[in-house]
């Protein structure tokens, strides 16, 4: 009788411990895809159905050489329109993503829209079209968690993203994501020859902002060269008319 009572108590204690630890264990092991999606959400979800003003600053030999202002209409990761509003020489130029891997450039001076590659440079900067217009990486890349690492003083997840096919601009991306809140911090872009091509650093302009609004891209092609994108103003709306993201709507009437 005494023995049976002791076993019961042990069983109850074990069951209780498992019940307490089970959720903790599942919380501690997010998959690489979950980490990637949560990081991309910071960028993607915040922009959905928003009109955003941004500035693009091109630095050469550590000096500001060119400055552009763009108005970004973002519906989702596959439907984005970016119109240049400054300088006057480039005013009215529009870049459009009209679906997955369907990129267009409209030049108002010749009233012509032409198809462009996602890896083409954006306004002769260090960003390519896909860097700006397609933030959600899980569509194109298969992620793997290769460890945790300190980036400065910040504890991060380190992901290795491998391109799902050869038409993807970068063969591999190494992605550092802040462990605490899945804030994206850095991406290193590699080519098919496994050479580092570009590095993107992301940060929030203030403590109040919980998503990346400042992006600094540097390239191995030129020392002392970088491009900075800053999101300046954002207004959310109910959504855009479907024709906004169709290439036929680019031409002047």
């Amino acid at each position, binding site marked *: 009788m005494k023995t049976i009572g002791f076993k019961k108590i042990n069983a109850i204690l074990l069951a209780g411990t498992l019940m307490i630890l089970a959720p903790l264990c599942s919380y501690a092991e997010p998959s690489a895809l979950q980490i990637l999606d949560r990081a991309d959400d910071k960028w993607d979800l915040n922009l959905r159905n928003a009109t955003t003003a941004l500035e693009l600053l091109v630095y050469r*030999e550590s000096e500001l050489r060119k400055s552009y202002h763009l108005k970004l209409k973002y519906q989702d990761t596959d439907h984005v329109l970016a119109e240049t509003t400054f300088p006057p020489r480039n005013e009215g130029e529009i870049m459009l993503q009209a679906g997955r891997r369907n990129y267009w450039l409209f030049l108002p001076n010749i009233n012509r829209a032409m198809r462009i*590659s*996602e*890896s083409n440079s954006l306004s002769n900067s260090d960003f390519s079209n896909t860097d700006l217009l397609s933030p959600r990486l899980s569509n194109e890349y298969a992620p793997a968690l290769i460890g945790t690492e300190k980036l400065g003083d910040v504890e991060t997840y380190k992901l290795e993203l491998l*391109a799902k*096919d*050869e*038409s*993807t*601009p*970068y*063969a591999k991306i190494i992605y550092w994501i802040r462990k605490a809140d899945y804030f994206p911090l850095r991406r290193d872009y590699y*080519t*098919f*020859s496994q*050479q580092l*091509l570009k590095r993107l650093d992301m940060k929030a302009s203030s403590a109040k902002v919980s998503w990346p609004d400042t992006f600094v891209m540097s390239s*191995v*092609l*030129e*020392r*002392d060269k970088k491009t900075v994108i800053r999101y300046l103003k954002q207004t959310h709306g109910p959504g855009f008319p479907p024709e906004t993201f169709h290439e036929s709507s680019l031409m002047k009437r």
Partner: protein
Amino acid sequence: MLFILAYKNLWRNLRRTVLAEISIVFGVLVIIGSGNFINGMQRDWAKFEINSSTGAFQVEHRDYQAMGKSEPLKATLENSAALVEQISRIPGVRAAYGKLNFSGMVSSGVKSTFFDGRAVDVARQRQTLSQQQDLIVAGKPLGDSAGGVILGADLANMLGLKIGDPVTIVVQTLHGGLNLTYATLVGTKNGRHFPSTIYLEMPLDDAQKLLRVHDRVSQVVVGAEDFDSIPGLMKRVEAELRSEQAPYVMRGYQVLIPIYPQAIPSFKFISISVGIVLFILVGGGIGNVMAMAVLERKKEIGTLRALGMEKNQVRRLFLTEGFMIGVIGSLSGLLLTSALTYFIATHGGIHLPPPAGTSQILIIIPQMNLATSVLGVAMPLLVSVLGAWWPASASANLNPIEALTEA
């Protein structure tokens, strides 16, 4: 009888006949000589371009011209090594090599810019293009080892690169991804009409790996054993490849050499202009000589007419004299021009200095051409007869009594 009389008349005023002959010889010399010079210049220009960059002709995918500018890798020739081998075996082909066209960004580490690239099979290119090293202005041609790159002299200058400096090359692969490689600058190229500000050349194997296009080329460049047999050789190669049911088209050096198609009509225009000017000058000279002869020989014409010579016979006499002057002058001019052309051709031709920043000397060896020679002889001959026509008609219409009275 008429010919003998006309021939004797030529010797009656030798000074006038000689002056007329000199003007015809000069006309023939200029027409045929300038034609030979232009013909030689055309041939030597074409030969230089063929042996230094374009080859005699190139074989490419039939869609390349339509797609080449926007997506040069999409319309390429597959199984290129076997194709090059097949073309190389055709009689009359000196050698052939594969060439891959692509574009991208090239960087010195400090500056970067767009380039228009050519990847070549170095060993086979050396056999096909005997003068390709003439475009090198610094360093050396691509070697057999990997990792070398040649840039246009102006492009290297713009990037601040010297021979031996490392360069970074970024391209978009066949499937759309980005790729990067590091290389070493081994030489720079320049020349007439050479795209020196955007030119980049690298070994074919390196480029195929970089662009991820295994065994593909944009064109097969073909070298011919003999310049004059190129049109026939093109037909033979085309016939052989057509039987393969493959999507090949041929492009001859005439369309491959920059501005060549535009320059040839200009050359022809110059030749025709020279011919027309000489036609007028020589015709005027002959007409003048014959008119003077009629005036001087009025008494003789009156006597001949009084003795019963028909108007037609008098006209034919003067026309025959004009024809004889034309024949003698034209043939003498042809002989003189041929001798002069032979002399210049056998003494190394005419050397034109290279343009600034290039080492490309153009040697012009004048070349006899049947069409130009026939034209150069026929034109002064025709002009001589036409020039004699009006004075001959005037002489035939003279009244014998008036002619004898005036004389």
